[in-house]
């Protein structure tokens, strides 16, 4: 279970998170939606300790990442997670295959190095990629990088996976393949996950619950069916993707 309470974060004078409360049950797929720049990635990074919140607590399996200080216990905490970066963050000095199996050496010493190649091929197949094991990340398209990064995040079969926009930049068919993969990981391995996404179709397909973040707080949490028929005007506007409504984006006015 991931239990975040009162998570606050500001960068300099800009307050990003004003007290986020999120409780993700074991085996649940929790989808986080919200405007661009609303702090979704910041929250996801807080969960794994890449960003240190100013206050609040994030407890996973009775360890509170915001209280951990020594490098060993932080490392132990992080080992529970797989993390898909929004911008892929592949190691550009390594081949695709080496990228995918990179974490195994540290996270899964029980797996022998002779199996790495097969595992890389296997995980790449899961995300719909074939025959690119020996390419360098610079030779891949944006969507391919994203999928290699996803393969890397799940290679060690972590119990928790944090996905930062898994379907962004993918074509509709590939997006759906990734949706199925996320559902599969949940069903077969009981993975607990938080998915940040702008893709409403994907959100409604994979979510057990959807939460919307707005102005640094969780505006509403609920079952996808509830979110579809919500009375909250702001959530409605966001889910339906309308420019008119209570949420005003700061734009230059044309006349």
């Amino acid at each position, binding site marked *: 279970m991931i239990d975040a309470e009162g998570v606050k974060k500001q960068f300099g004078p800009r307050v990003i998170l004003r007290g986020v409360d999120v409780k993700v049950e074991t085996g649940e797929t929790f989808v986080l939606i919200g405007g661009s720049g609303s702090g979704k990635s910041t929250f996801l990074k807080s969960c*794994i300790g*890449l960003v240190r919140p100013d206050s609040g607590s994030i407890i996973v399996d009775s360890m509170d990442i915001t209280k951990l200080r020594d490098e060993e216990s932080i*490392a132990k905490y*992080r080992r529970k997670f797989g993390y898909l970066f929004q*911008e892929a963050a592949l190691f*550009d000095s390594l081949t695709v295959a080496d990228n995918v199996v990179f974490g195994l050496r540290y*996270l899964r010493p029980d797996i022998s190095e002779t199996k790495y190649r097969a595992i890389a091929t296997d995980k790449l197949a899961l995300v719909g990629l074939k025959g690119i094991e020996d390419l360098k990340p610079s030779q891949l398209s944006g969507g391919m990088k994203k999928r290699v990064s996803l393969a890397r995040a799940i290679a*060690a079969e972590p119990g928790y996976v944090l996905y930062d926009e898994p379907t962004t930049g993918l074509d509709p068919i590939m997006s759906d393949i990734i949706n199925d993969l996320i559902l599969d990981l949940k069903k077969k391995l009981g993975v607990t996950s938080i998915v940040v996404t702008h893709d409403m179709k994907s959100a409604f397909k994979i979510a057990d619950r959807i939460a919307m973040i707005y102005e640094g707080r969780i505006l509403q949490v609920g079952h996808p069916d509830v979110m579809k028929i919500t009375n909250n005007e702001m959530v409605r506007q966001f889910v339906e993707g309308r420019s008119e409504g209570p949420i005003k984006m700061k734009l230059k006015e044309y006349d």
Partner: protein
Amino acid sequence: MSEAATTTAESPSLLEAMGGRALNVAESMGQFTMLVRSSLFWAIRAPIEWRQTVTQMLHIGVQSAPVSILTSLFTGMVLALETGSSFINLFNEPVFTGTIVSFAITKELGPVMTAVVVSGRAGAAIAAELGTMKVTEQIDALYTLGTDPVRYLVIPRVIAFLIVLPILSIFSDFAGVFGGGLVGYLKLGIPPNIYWHEVFDHLDTEQFFHGLVKTFFFAFCISFISCFKGIFTRGGAEGVGRATTEAVVYSMVSVLVADYFITAILVAIGIT
């Protein structure tokens, strides 16, 4: 009157600027100390990444060997030319040219010139590479994959530097002394056997050691500063550029400053 008024008007912002600067320096010093501490932690607690270390040794060696040997060769040549021609003026003969060149090169110029060249070559490369990794979140990715940037990136580079810099320095020593002999023979008419006699009659292992000890300290300075600048890069491509320049400048300055203090200590304990 008006002058006083402007000073009072300006002094808060000046103070603020100085205070801000001091805070930045203090913060950087803190982060640097943390990096060194964390390196010690990982060096003790986790196996060394030998594959990375060897790759880095090759990188640093191959990148820097040609330049550092060339630099040293010409330093030896110009030293021989300067001392030889001065001594011809003073004593009518270029006596002790070999002694002076070999002393200056092995104790001082070989190690220092090598360190300066390597700062500019390998130090810059490290800062640029780690800086790029930082701004593209590859450093964060290391954390999420069960390792640590200090363990995976910093320690291999520091060890590689500790091994490669002394070797490069020894090559440079040879190149410098050889360059001196070459100029001595071709321009000053010193017969090679006399030159080598002058070199080896006065040079002993202690002097050689004096030079070598320095290189280990230089290796620490350059590798930690370059890694530090890389890992703490902020602000996109522009930040990477800034980190790279700063890494080179700070490495070079720290090498020259450290050089004086290490020499002072070595002299004080009698290794001269």
